[in-house]
C-alpha cells in the first residue's frame, strides 16, 4: 500500500492502527525492560510496583552472585569461542560454495544446490541422537569445543546469501580475469571476496545469533561446567542452582541480561543487515 493511499485513511483508522502497533511494541519490549529491572533488584519484588526501578532497591550484587555461581567470564569465553568458530567456518565454506554455485558451471552443481535447499528442511532434532552417538560416544568429543562446533560449521542460509550476492556481480568481471589468465582461487581472493564484504557482514550477523543462543546441542555434549557456553550455564542454574541465594530470581535475570545483551546490541546497531536477508532469502535464519 503506498503513502497516498495511507493518507486517504480516515483519521480514526490511523489512530486505531497506531494504537495497535504501539500495543504490540509494548508487549514485545516489556519483558526486556522487566528483565533489566529484575536483574537490578536487591530484594525480589514481583508486585506491580516492582515494575518500577525504585532507587532504594537497586543493586549490582545479582551480577556478582551469578558470576560466582556459574563463572560468567569462563562461560562468556566458551560462548565466544563456540560462536566465533562457527561464524568463521560458516563464512569460509559459504563463500566457497556460494561462489561456485553462482558463477561456475561444473558437474553436480544442480545436485549441490538442491542439497543446500534440502538441508533447511532437516530438523536438527532428528540428527541429534546419531550426532551424539557419533561425536560423543564414538569419537570422544564430549566436553570439547570441536564437538560443540562441528554440527554447526556449515549453514545453508550463508551459502544462499553469498550465492545471491555473487549472482549480482556482472559476469564480465570474472570472465575478464579468466581471460587475463587468473585461476579461480586468484579470482576468488582478489575480486570476488572484496566485492562481497557487505555479504560477509550480513552472514556473520545472521550466523552469530544461532550458536550464541543455542541451548540444546551444547547442553547435550557438555558435562563439565567449565565447558558450558553461557546459555547452557544460565539454563542449568535456573534448574538447579537456586538454593542458598538471597535473590535467586535476580541472579538468574542478571545472567539472562549478560546472555541477551550482545545479541540485542548487535541487532539494534546492524538491524538493516538482519532484516534485508530475511526478505531476500525468505528463509528461516
Amino acid at each position: 500500500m503506498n503513502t497516498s493511499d495511507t493518507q486517504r485513511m480516515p483519521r480514526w483508522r490511523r489512530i486505531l492502527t497506531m494504537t495497535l502497533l504501539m500495543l504490540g511494541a509494548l508487549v514485545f519490549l516489556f519483558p526486556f525492560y522487566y528483565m533489566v529491572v529484575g536483574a537490578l533488584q536487591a530484594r525480589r519484588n514481583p508486585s506491580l510496583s516492582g515494575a518500577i526501578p525504585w532507587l532504594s532497591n537497586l543493586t549490582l550484587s545479582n551480577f556478582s552472585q551469578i558470576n560466582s555461581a556459574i563463572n560468567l567470564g569462563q562461560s562468556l569465553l566458551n560462548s565466544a569461542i563456540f560462536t566465533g568458530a562457527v561464524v568463521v567456518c560458516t563464512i569460509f565454506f559459504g563463500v566457497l560454495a556460494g561462489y561456485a554455485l553462482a558463477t561456475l558451471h561444473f558437474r553436480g552443481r544442480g545436485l549441490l544446490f538442491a542439497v543446500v535447499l534440502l538441508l533447511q528442511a532437516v530438523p536438527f532434532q532428528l540428527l541429534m541422537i546419531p550426532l551424539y552417538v557419533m561425536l560423543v560416544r564414538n569419537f570422544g568429543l564430549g566436553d570439547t569445543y570441536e564437538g560443540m562446533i562441528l554440527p554447526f560449521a556449515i549453514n545453508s542460509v550463508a551459502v544462499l546469501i553469498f550465492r545471491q550476492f555473487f549472482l549480482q556481480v556482472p559476469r564480465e568481471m570474472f570472465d575478464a580475469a579468466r581471460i587475463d589468465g587468473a585461476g579461480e582461487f586468484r579470482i576468488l581472493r582478489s575480486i570476488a571476496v572484496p566485492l562481497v564484504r557487505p555479504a560477509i557482514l550480513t552472514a556473520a550477523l545472521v550466523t552469530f545469533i544461532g550458536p550464541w543462543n543455542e541451548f540444546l546441542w551444547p547442553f547435550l555434549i557438555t558435562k563439565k561446567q567449565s565447558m558450558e557456553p553461557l546459555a547452557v550455564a544460565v539454563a542449568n542454574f535456573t534448574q538447579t542452582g537456586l538454593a542458598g541465594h538471597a535473590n535467586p530470581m535476580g541472579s538468574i535475570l542478571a545472567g539472562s541480561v549478560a546472555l541477551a545483551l550482545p545479541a540485542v546490541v548487535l541487532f539494534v546497531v546492524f538491524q538493516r543487515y538482519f532484516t534485508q536477508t530475511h526478505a531476500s532469502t525468505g528463509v528461516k535464519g
Partner: protein
Amino acid sequence: MLGEHPAGLLLSAPYALFVAAVFVYPLGFGIWMSFHHYFFTAPGAVVPHPYVGLKNYATVISDPAVRASFVHVGEFLIINVPLTVIFSLLLATALNNAIHWRGFLRVSYYVPYVTASVAMITVWMFMFNSGGIVNRILGPLAPNPAWLVNTTWAMPSIALYVTWKQLGFFILLFLAALQNVPDELNEAAAIDGASRWQSYRTVTIPAVRPATTLVVLLAIITGANLFTEPYLMTSGGGPNGATTTPVFLLYQKGIEQGTPDVASAIGVLLVIGVLLIAYASRKVTERE
C-alpha cells in the same frame, strides 16, 4: 566431463564433505539405528548390533508416554499456529499502513526473535509464577496452581510464549509479501465499490497466500521440534508430565536412558508426522 569449470567441484568440496559428515551420514545412521538393537559401548569396542525389524517402532508406539508426547505437541500446534498466523498478519498489515515510527516498530517486534530463548524464558517464569506480576494483575482470576505448574495451563502458556518469541520473524515475512501486493488490485476493488474490509479479504489475503503457506509450514516444523521451552519452563516434563514432547523423550530415552535405537524410532516417526501435517496444512491454506 567435469563441466566447463572443474574448479567449482574443488571449491564446493569442503562444504559437500561437511554436509556428508554432519547431515547425510547421521541421517542415514539414525534411520539405520531405528531398525537395529543399538546401545552405547566403550569407544572402539566392536559389538554386533543385530537387525530387529520394527521392534523399536513397536516399543515406541505401545508406550503411553510417547503417545502422550505427540498429543502434547498437537495441543501446542493447535494453539500456536493459528495465533501466529492471525497476529503476524494483523501486525504486518498495520505496520504496512503505518507512516511514522516504522523502524522502531520493526526493531521492537523482531528483537525477541534474535534473543536467546534461555534468557527470555527466565523473564516469563518470573512474570508467570504464582506470585508473579501476571497473577497480581489478574487477582482472583489467576489460575491455581499458577500457569506453568498447572496441568491444564502449562502447555498453552508455553504455546503463548513461543508465539511471542517468534512472531517478529513471521511479521517480517508477511510484511515483505504485503509490500509486493500491487496497488492496482486494491484500487480496482475500490472502484468496484468494495469496502476496505472486502478488498482486504478478497484481494490482500489471497495475494499473500504463498506467505501464509510458508508461515504455517515453518510454525509447524519449529513447533514439532519443541524442546528447550518446556524443558526449562516446566523443569523437564511439566506438572504430571503435561508438557513432555517427542524431542524431550528423544533426549530422555536416547541419552539419559541409553536407548538410542528407540529414540531414533521416535525421531523417524516425528518427521513422518511433520511431513503429513505439513502436507495437509498446505492443502488447507492453498485451497480456493
